[in-house]
């Protein structure tokens, strides 16, 4: 019975980890293509921010999958060595997920501030714009 549980959990761990890896790979390849495109065509600093935000979201999603596989692994972790490795990997992933969330929030705030500034600038321009001569 225990061996069956171990086999089932191992298969589930493999599937969940594969999903996480796929998400990270897709996000990284997409971001690399966008970085190259933005670097060659637009050469604008602000154009890089949305790409970095999207890559951060992909990485956070991939990390969620990987943390889920860590949780599954705790169901069967026979030795203290494996438990130690699992704890280290889970700690790294959790810390990274936390900081990624903070970075995404910070960059999103900056983008919103820039957009608001641009809107205020265009609003003041239109307020002082051409007036009726009468």
């Amino acid at each position, binding site marked *: 019975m225990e061996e069956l549980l171990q086999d089932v959990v*191992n298969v589930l761990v*493999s599937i969940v*980890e*594969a999903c*996480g*890896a796929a998400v*990270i*790979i897709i*996000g*990284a*390849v997409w*971001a*690399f293509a966008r*970085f*190259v495109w*933005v*670097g*060659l065509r637009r*050469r*604008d*600093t602000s154009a*890089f921010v949305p790409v*970095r935000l999207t*890559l*951060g979201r992909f*990485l956070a999603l*991939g*990390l969620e999958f*990987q943390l889920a596989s860590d949780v599954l692994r705790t169901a069967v972790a026979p030795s203290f060595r494996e438990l130690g*490795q699992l704890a*280290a*990997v889970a700690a*790294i*992933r959790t*810390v*990274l997920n936390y*900081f990624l969330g903070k970075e995404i929030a910070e960059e999103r705030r900056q983008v919103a501030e820039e957009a608001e500034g641009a809107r205020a600038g265009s609003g003041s321009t239109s307020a002082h714009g051409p007036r009726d001569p009468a």
Partner: protein
Amino acid sequence: MTGVLLTLPGLMAQLLSGAALLAGVLTLAATRKPALALSVFLDLLTAAGLLRLVGDPSWQAIATAAVIVGLRHLIALGLRIGARNWTTSTQAPGRHGSRPGVVIDRLLRPAWRR
């Protein structure tokens, strides 16, 4: 399936490390902003580090990923502090703008040495 899960992420992690270097250099050439180029480089390097943790990672892979994550935040913090100092020191007088001569003069003779 486990074999593929062990080999493919490792291969992709190596490819992503190369792509990170390429994207960083391209960003630096396109924008001439080292901070942004370093951020792009470290973003993709983080993705590569995460892929190395897939499967059954060794202690060395775990330590490498931890060092990359720590280094990334240390560098980002240093760049933020440096950018803040640089912005305040170049904007404070505000009379000469940011002409190259003024910038070089400020680098060689900062305000506290005058």
